[in-house]
């Protein structure tokens, strides 16, 4: 496949699933401006590292990985500011809390370390397979599975329902 064909495929894919990638970025940074920034940067990164895409059928996991890594880079950079702003927000902003019916759960999810949260989001919200998540996060499947269980446990969610079966 020529380079332009590959570029064309990536462009089509990104345009088609842009909402998903945006939500994922948003789930890390929780504001629209930064999420847009991350999407923009992920696209730049993707095209400057086409060589790291070994096989066009991996576009999805490959691009997810770029978005996750770009988001994490962003959080690392912003870490210090968050310490201040969370205190500030909890003291000053109550409006958002009212809209969450399951505030405790929502807060618990937000409190999970990013690598646990990523797994839950990718597995249950984005409906990805464990194998795909392992590829995205560059971990082995067992690690992903262990973290998924641990994450759910921290959220105190029990998995009984077939539809929410962990291993698929």
């Amino acid at each position, binding site marked *: 496949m020529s380079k332009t064909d590959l570029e064309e495929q990536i462009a089509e894919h990104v345009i088609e699933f842009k909402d998903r990638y945006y939500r994922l970025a948003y789930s890390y940074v929780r504001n629209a401006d930064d999420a847009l920034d991350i*999407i923009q940067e992920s696209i*730049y990164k993707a095209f400057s590292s086409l060589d790291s895409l070994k096989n066009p059928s991996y576009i999805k996991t490959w691009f997810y990985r770029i978005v996750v890594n770009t988001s994490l880079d962003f959080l*690392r950079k912003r870490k210090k500011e968050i310490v201040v702003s969370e205190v500030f927000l909890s003291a000053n902003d109550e409006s958002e809390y009212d809209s*969450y019916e399951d505030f405790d759960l*929502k807060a618990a999810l937000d409190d999970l370390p990013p690598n646990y949260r990523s797994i839950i989001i990718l597995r249950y919200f984005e409906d990805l397979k464990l194998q795909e998540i392992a590829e995205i996060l560059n971990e082995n499947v067992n690690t992903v599975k262990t973290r998924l269980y641990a994450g759910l446990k921290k959220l105190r969610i029990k998995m009984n329902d077939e539809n929410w079966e962990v291993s698929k």
Partner: protein
Amino acid sequence: MKNNSLEKLKKEYMDIPIPQELDFVVKKALKESRSNSTTMAAKGRLRKAAVVAASTAACVAVLTIGVNMSPAFAKTLSKVPIVSSIVKVLTFREYTVDDGTFNANIKVPEISGLKDGKLQSSLNEKYLKENEKLYEQFIADMEDMKQNGGGHLGVDSGYVVKTDTDRILSIGRYVVNIVGSSSTTFKYDTIDKKNEVLITLPSLFKDDSYVDIISENIKEQMKSRHEADDSMIYWVEGVEDEGLVELFEKISKEQNFYINSDGKLVICFDKYDVAPGCMGIQEFVIPTEIISDILVSNEYIK
């Protein structure tokens, strides 16, 4: 808590509002990267090779706000640092668009007072052309967005006199693009006012060895900045190892630079060139000791 909590959480997640700018941001980023990467394939890393320079993000913010808020301040900026010298930089032309959510503010600098009319007019022509292009692009993007249901778009362009000594004049032109997020680019021209020549990076050195010497120093600076503060991420070996991005190897022969008022060489990179966008534009002051052996003279760099 039960599974329906997770379902509720998922619903909330799926309800994250998608801003109308997203489509535009994605398409623009794709367009930029794709046209870049085809040229890059042929010419190596073009974005680095372009004669583009960067300054610190803080500097841009202050100046941008200052210039916007007060015409008096803008005047101060363009005049005061150069009152004493004959060579001047003034605002030659301004483009403004203020159409609800669409805003453009473009100022074109003009140099006057150089005896070498050729150098002066070629620089001034370049500035005017660049800004005309920027304005046309903005209008095209604005029409495009209007047809697609509107949105926010802003462009702010102007200039700063970075250094103005008896000998050296460094002018930086900046462009800030705002589409939800923002990007900033800086381009510099440095002029020797006495001999009336445009100073290029290769002209400062005896041979090409400066590329490697300066690149190694920048890599060291990147690593030590990262070690001092691990939130400072650079795309350099030893800091970023994901294999996902092109790591910084060396500067281009025509890398962006200016000479600061202490006579130090400052190498500049645009946003996204050597670090994630959140790091902004990057500058590295090169210690004169490490290049003193290969400098043609100490006339400019001390």
